[in-house]
């Protein structure tokens, strides 16, 4: 019932291995348990929101950054959690800012931790702005060195991603599959890659209004919402997007 790896309390020297891809969420227990998060498959347990917050508080106070990350990633994604997510993510961000400076995570964890960090930051920015951010509106923020290898990012693309894209661009007019190949395995969604090509071709080098609205509609409305954006990013991670993204 409580299956799970036993983690020796003292010996958390290394960052945890990247968690398995998130399971399909199950929205079944809302009638039975108030605020009970859904049980994921694969051994994850249903904590209440209050319990999640308690664990986060404990790990934050004790400065256990890696445990906090591991705990957060173990939680299922669901609407009820999302409501409290900003609290949790904001705490995670605080923690990274305040306490994480002396500990550098292994590079294989950077991507996920960056995502977490950015999410938290965007939620804060949204709160300040009072409305959801669009893809364009997302601020370019320098990531903490503990979760970043220092590579510069501009317009949401890392330099090496742009190089990969340029290589594809050098081919005669890339078809959708080529764009998908460039996008696959990289952070940005293929829609973003497609827009990049469009901009490149049009010679503006800037995201146009068209591209913005395309991105928006791909995400389900202008500014798509963080959840769908991150969901998109996750899907780009885990499976190939032959369709060339949801731009249509």
């Amino acid at each position, binding site marked *: 019932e409580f299956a*799970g790896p036993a983690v020796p309390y003292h010996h958390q020297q290394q960052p945890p291995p990247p968690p398995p891809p998130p399971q399909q969420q199950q929205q079944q227990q809302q009638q039975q348990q108030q605020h009970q998060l859904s049980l994921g498959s694969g051994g994850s347990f249903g904590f209440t929101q209050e319990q999640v917050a308690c664990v986060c508080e404990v790990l934050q106070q004790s400065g256990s950054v890696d445990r906090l990350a591991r705990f957060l990633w173990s939680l299922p994604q669901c609407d009820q959690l999302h409501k409290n997510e900003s609290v949790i993510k904001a705490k995670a961000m605080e923690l990274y800012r305040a306490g994480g400076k002396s500990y550098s995570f292994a590079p294989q964890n950077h991507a996920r931790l960056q995502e977490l960090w950015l999410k938290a930051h965007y939620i804060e920015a949204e709160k300040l702005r009072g409305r959801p951010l669009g893809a364009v509106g997302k601020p370019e923020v320098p990531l903490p060195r503990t979760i970043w290898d220092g590579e510069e990012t501009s317009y949401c693309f890392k330099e090496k991603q742009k190089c990969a894209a340029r290589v594809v661009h050098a081919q005669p007019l890339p078809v959708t599959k080529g764009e998908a190949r460039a996008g696959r395995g990289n952070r940005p969604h293929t829609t973003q890659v497609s827009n990049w090509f469009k901009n490149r071709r049009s010679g503006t080098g800037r995201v146009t209004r068209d591209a913005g609205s395309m991105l928006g509609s791909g995400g389900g409305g202008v500014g798509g919402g963080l959840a769908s954006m991150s969901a998109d990013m996750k899907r780009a991670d885990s499976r190939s997007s032959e369709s060339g993204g949801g731009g249509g």
Partner: protein
Amino acid sequence: RPPPLPPTTIASRRPEPPQPPQQPPRPRPPTQATRAATSRPTMPATPDEKPRMSGGKSSSAAVSTGKIGGTGAAGGVAASRKANPSPGLGFELERVFVWDLDETIILFHSLLGGTYATRFGKSLIFRLADAHLFFNDLEECDQVHIDDVSSDDNGQDLAGYDFANDGFVGGTANMQPGMAGGMRGGVEWMRKLAYRYRRIKDVYNAYRNNVGGLLDPGKREEWHQVRQETEQFTDSWLTLALKSLSIIANRSACVNVLVTNTQLVPALGKILVFGLAPVFSVENVYSATKIGKESCFERIASRYGRKPTYVAIGDSHDEEAAAKSLNWPFWRVQNHNDLAALSYALDMGYL
């Protein structure tokens, strides 16, 4: 003569203590708040939950533990020569889990109601507390913590000390020299008070893993029945709580602390009867009856310092409010799932 008090090792098997004799009603010492000028009635009212024992022994052997030689403290006689305050920390503590007792670990009222377990459980607790933990002597001298009067202790070897006839009963901290029994005043009385708390500590440590050894066979059977029925009626609540308590107790960098609204001596009785003594050191039990939970939490915080992270676990607003005042995370326990989630979180290393 009763057998000597065994040392605090688990392995030792000891002959059972004799049947606790009947204790005739004794005058209770006045509370420390009242002056000694007025004499108390010699026949104290016996509340229902404190039945007198049957048996016809004389009052001189009333408190069997009084005649037991040795203190049983770890380290032998030398350790008993000085008052033994709580051990200092030789390692880095990371987590302090502060538990509530009633309705969090032990369910009495909410589920047990008028069952056998309730009736006989309470009776058993008070009988044990009376026979071995000086409950009668100390009811009016309640302390927050077992070491609170240790500064009045002179470390005298308590082997052979006659608790039943040392004149503690009928005295008070506020007595003047020359009063009843030729006692040398309040300091003397305080010292005897300290002896009692030291003896309680020794008994707790000696029997914490062998509570049956404190009970004679008849009571032992009753004890088993109480435990069994409690588990049955509460759907193994205590077992579930013990899962978490044991995980914590087995970690060298974590500790279980108890803060209860029960008086200290009966609380220790409850802990012993319900098999919680292995996971709570006697020095980690606090009674909030006199000072409230928040003050107890503050004491704990200043005792363990700023380094560890504190987690409060309880069922009521009492604990929650106290935890909040100190910015301690609070884990609410109101149903089996809450306990199960706690042990899962501990198992996974999230807490």
